[in-house]
């Protein structure tokens, strides 16, 4: 599978995993594929639905920065299945049991939340950072009723004078 075919396949895999019953790894594979990576990403981010295009880009970025990533991610997915990690509130226990795999899990979660992989430089043009997503970065979801994804304004001039409606419960 290459990145150009991912949109169609992503829709299929999304439908399958939305049932929530499929194990992350259906077959005894050595390297993770895009469908399994999407399922793994859903488990790690606690989302039932994730965008398959972004998922493919995250997988490409993570594996471009780490030759062993496809295999490590596969082992991670299998370990998650064996551990029965369905609720990320138990991730700390999983990480303690699998210290060799938890960094890969954090890399995947970071890619989804931050929308990039690697370490971006603030004042240099050369680094190992790779783009995953901007408006789809999960870090914007928890506040999207109050603040915008930068560049995508939703208010009008001076809307900022009034505090958000949620203030009292924030």
């Amino acid at each position: 599978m290459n990145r150009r075919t991912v949109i169609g396949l992503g829709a299929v895999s999304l439908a399958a995993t939305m049932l929530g019953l499929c194990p992350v790894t259906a077959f005894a594979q050595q390297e993770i594929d895009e469908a399994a990576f999407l399922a793994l990403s859903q488990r790690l981010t606690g989302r039932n639905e994730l965008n398959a295009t972004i998922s493919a880009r995250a997988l490409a970025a993570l594996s471009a920065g780490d030759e062993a990533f496809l295999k490590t991610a596969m082992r991670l997915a299998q370990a998650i299945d064996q551990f029965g990690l369905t609720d990320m509130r138990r991730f700390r226990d999983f990480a303690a049991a699998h210290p060799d795999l938890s960094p890969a899990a954090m890399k995947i979660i970071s890619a989804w939340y931050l929308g990039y992989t690697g370490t971006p430089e603030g004042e240099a043009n050369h680094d190992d950072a790779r783009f995953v997503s901007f408006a789809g970065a999960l870090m914007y979801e928890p506040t999207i009723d109050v603040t915008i994804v930068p560049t995508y304004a939703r208010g009008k001039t001076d809307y900022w004078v009034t505090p958000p409606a949620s203030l009292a419960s924030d």
Partner: protein
Amino acid sequence: MASQFDADVIVIGSGAIGTNAAHLLAQRGKSVIILEAGEWIPRWKIVENFRSSPRKNNLNDPYPNFPWGMSSFDEDYIENTGNFNYVPYQLQLVGGTTWHWAAATWRFLPNDMKMKSLYGVSNDWPMEYSELEPWYDLAERNLGVAGSDTDDQSGRSGPAHPPRSAPYPVPAEGETYYFQRLKARIGAEGYSFIHEPNGRTNKPYDGRPACSGNNNCMPVCPIGAMYSGDVHARHAEKAGAKIITDATAYKLEKGEGGKIIAVHYRSSTGADVRLTAKTFVVAANGIETPKLLLLSDVANSNDLVGRHLMDHSGISLIFTADEPLWPGRGQVQQGAIFKWRDGDFRGQHSAIKHAPHNNVPNRDVAELLLRQGVVGPELDERIRHMSARWVVIESMFETLPHATNRVTLSKTKKDALGIPTLSFNYDLDGDAYVERARDLCMDDYGNFVRAMGGTVINDKTGWQNHAHVMGTVMMGTDPKTSVTNHEGRTWDHDNLFLATTGVLPSSSVLNPTLAGIALGLRTADIIAREV
């Protein structure tokens, strides 16, 4: 002797200062050519470059970086020998570096221009504030500056200051809730909160829309509410000026009687062109301007070109408050906090400007939480909780002009056009004037955090670049100690003018671009009377 010229005036550089000057000259009926090393790039492309960049905190990343026009963030373009890693942020495209400023457009105070006579440090400007005031007024109208007509910008809570001949062309935008709360609680501790005049219009102005809070002034305003130099590049063209892009000026040619007779530029394909004019204006940023002078061995008989580099070197503070403030709604910055703005203390230590930043904080918050290993529902909950309470204060210090803080040509490296790259020597550690201010700034930080019931996230940032380039071709009254006179005219060549923040002989704590534009307009007016 040549009587035919390619133009009355050639302006080198199409940034905010060069295009404002070129526009005035074209309006006065002069034939004007503007040379620009980069290209026209439509706003939407820069916005898309930003949106698809993995390095959102890198202000130069959405902009061009070519072997023949390297970004100032390219490690092959910049080398440093001092104890601080100086990184200028200049851009090469039509409109210049104001594509990624945040459009803070303060006026220097009259006292800022008399540092030597009032406080015994730095330099006096070779003009009175009153001589520059009409040009500040024109610059503000060109940019559509929004400001408060009642604030005392000296921070003394007195009547409106500095003096103005006309109201701001655009009224101040409404205060963000975030700023209101900081002002209410920190202001109660004796700190002055002053609206920051800015070139981010909040009503339709000169073809620009009102700001709607896209919260992305740096690195690019997606709707062009924020002023950038491309506005007057277009105005200059309409007034008759000709803009030549892909034209890297690399030599000013000297003729008889100390005149400059031609500029030589090179295209990205290596083609060389020579253009003549009666008068030349180098408006190529505070870094690239001295570079061109050094390359050409002009205006430098006293060896001052490139020296006295000043920035508003500073530090910053990040903390979380004990109440939801919701930064990120509106523009990325709005005002300043003054305690150490002006007074006799300036003989001993830097003035300080604190600026609360109002960026959507989610990236900084999420990066921090992920580094701590926070995942799952707790990650989402804490992103919301902390983003609501996130406060960033960026502080700038006045720096003094030191001859050893300088930009020179690299002795070892050249770009793809065969033009030497840049070398910096910038020392901050050991400079008691700024170190004393840093200690006072840390006291202020303690007060801010306490007043907001806060928890410190980071108060040990170390020195930071602000890319407010000043001093590198400073103006003055004495040919032995300055590069230009008050007109921006080089002492060595009476038809060569410099229009750049590099002419500022003292730095204050104010973003210098508006002063550079005002001075450039004044220079253009002087040229228009002569040519």
